[in-house]
């Protein structure tokens, strides 16, 4: 059974239809990539799945429960972890404390167990040396890493990653891919929005293309990237 399924989900901002009758499923442990031009509605789709934005129509089911009307708090506790495209750190808290909040509240863990989990995640995401730094003082790239680490600290069954690879050097990108593969190896399902295509295609099992709020296609990456419509719209290649 699917861990996440969207059934005819729609959302408009005023006259602008940002999510247009989108339906798809994610299997437990699956890695799904999402691509699409700027403003296609990718981040909005995440916000609908996490409950930060309410749907206009359609239903969202997570882990066998209809979560359409649930708060973001309830959904993260149920196992939907997320990163924000524009990093949203708790600026006065340390990097470690950013994770501790997530582990305590979203992950429902306490005491030594939570502390150790946070330390492990910091090491896995290359933030170990910055554990006690105030997160407000981090650079943009470090903040993006913190987004990933904090989402991991909620112990999700499904993790939503929104453009975390932009601006990385080749070496950093390889390290990020390793981290994401290790999350995948734990059995966590992943949906990853990314403009850095080579990073995305090295991990994902399926790829979805969004355009003007509509799901254009979904399937194996090679097949999707070969679709004429995708080549034209996403890559701007004339066919």
């Amino acid at each position: 059974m699917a861990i996440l399924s969207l059934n005819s989900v729609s959302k408009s901002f005023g006259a602008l239809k940002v999510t247009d009758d989108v339906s798809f499923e994610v299997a437990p442990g699956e890695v799904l990539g999402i691509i699409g031009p700027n403003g296609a509605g990718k981040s909005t789709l995440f916000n609908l799945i996490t409950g930060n934005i309410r749907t206009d129509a359609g239903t969202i089911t997570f882990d066998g429960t209809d979560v359409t009307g649930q708060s973001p708090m309830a959904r993260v506790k149920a196992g939907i972890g997320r990163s924000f495209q524009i990093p949203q750190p708790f600026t006065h808290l340390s990097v470690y404390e950013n994770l501790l909040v997530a582990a305590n509240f979203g992950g429902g863990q306490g005491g030594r167990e939570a502390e150790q989990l946070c330390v492990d995640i910091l090491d896995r995401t290359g933030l170990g040396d910055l554990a006690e730094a105030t997160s407000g003082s981090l650079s943009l790239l470090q903040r993006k890493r913190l987004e990933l680490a904090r989402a991991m600290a909620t112990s999700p069954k499904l993790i939503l990653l929104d453009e975390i690879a932009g601006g990385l050097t080749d070496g950093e990108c390889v390290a990020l891919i390793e981290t994401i593969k290790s999350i995948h190896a734990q059995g966590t399902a992943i949906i990853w929005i990314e403009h850095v295509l080579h990073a995305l295609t090295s991990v994902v099992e399926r790829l979805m293309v969004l355009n003007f709020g509509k799901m254009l296609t979904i399937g194996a990456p090679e097949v999707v990237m070969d679709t004429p419509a995708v080549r034209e719209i996403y890559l701007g290649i004339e066919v």
Partner: protein
Amino acid sequence: MNHNSKIALPVALAIVAALALVPFYGSRAIIQDLFTVLTLLVLAMNWNILAGFAGLVSVGQQAFVGTGAYAMFAAVILGGVDPLWGIVIGGAAAAALSVPIAIFTFRLNGAYFAIGTWVSAEIVRLSLAQWKALGGGTGTSLPKGTTQEMFGVQPIRHLLGISNAAAADVLSYWLALALAVATLSASYLFLRSRAGLGLQAIRDNLEAARSVGVDPARLKAIVFVLSALGTGVCGALMFLQITRVTPDAAFSVVDWTAFVIFITVIGGIGTLPGPIVGVLVFYVLQRLLADYGTLYLILLGLFGIAIMLFARRGLWGLFTDKTGIELLPLRHRPPRTATPVPGIPPKIVKEGT
């Protein structure tokens, strides 16, 4: 930093011990003054947690001071209980009242929330002014002798060899000191707890806090009720010491909210030591400027505005920024996996030998 916290605890204990011993050598006037300072401190610490940490800028704390005071008077006059129990009942009544007030005001944001709390306090004041058994609009006094018969007064009278009235003052003073210590300790433990971490996350970024599972309404409600409890207990104690209550005095927005905000803001809102610094400065200013009448309030206001413009985090924030000294730090540190072995000095590599 570690060094600071190591000397901070003994120093704090010494200060508390010195304060506890004041009745053995200080005059009654000093004890009454210190009582005022300590009770204002308790109100300021409660408001600081509310506004500085939970972002709930209430200007209706007089609702809880007044309710605490009136519930205590009702329990003593109508119920015949010992005033010390009356204080407990006062706190419970204020906490109970905070629930409906929260249900009403939590629907409002920012300035509207502030106005909502003030309106709620006015409604409670007007309602209690109708209570004829407690003197209606003119208020009432505790029956003669109530405070002398209060639990603990006679032993204190014998111990210190003072009058009944002075012994009652000493008891109130010790209770105020205990309340201040309890409030500070509870605030620290609360802010260091899971809930406190959640509050700090909300203060930094509401949307992100919700996305990692922190429920803002729930945490804010807990803080609102707890601070009403503390404020109600303090209100009951303050009016027990005065032995007389009127709706205007018990629900004074100037005394129980405006001054309290002033104290917290000049001391350092959102910092734990802030209210302590603030109340000391406030007391000194009050002493220095008391002879100037209305001018005193104007000067107080100007001072407050200057602090708000030039030191957003108050005098304590200014001090921390300049010195790097932090008392009562709230930081959670990661568990250390590899601790350096103590006692072995780091190797010094000499060059050119």
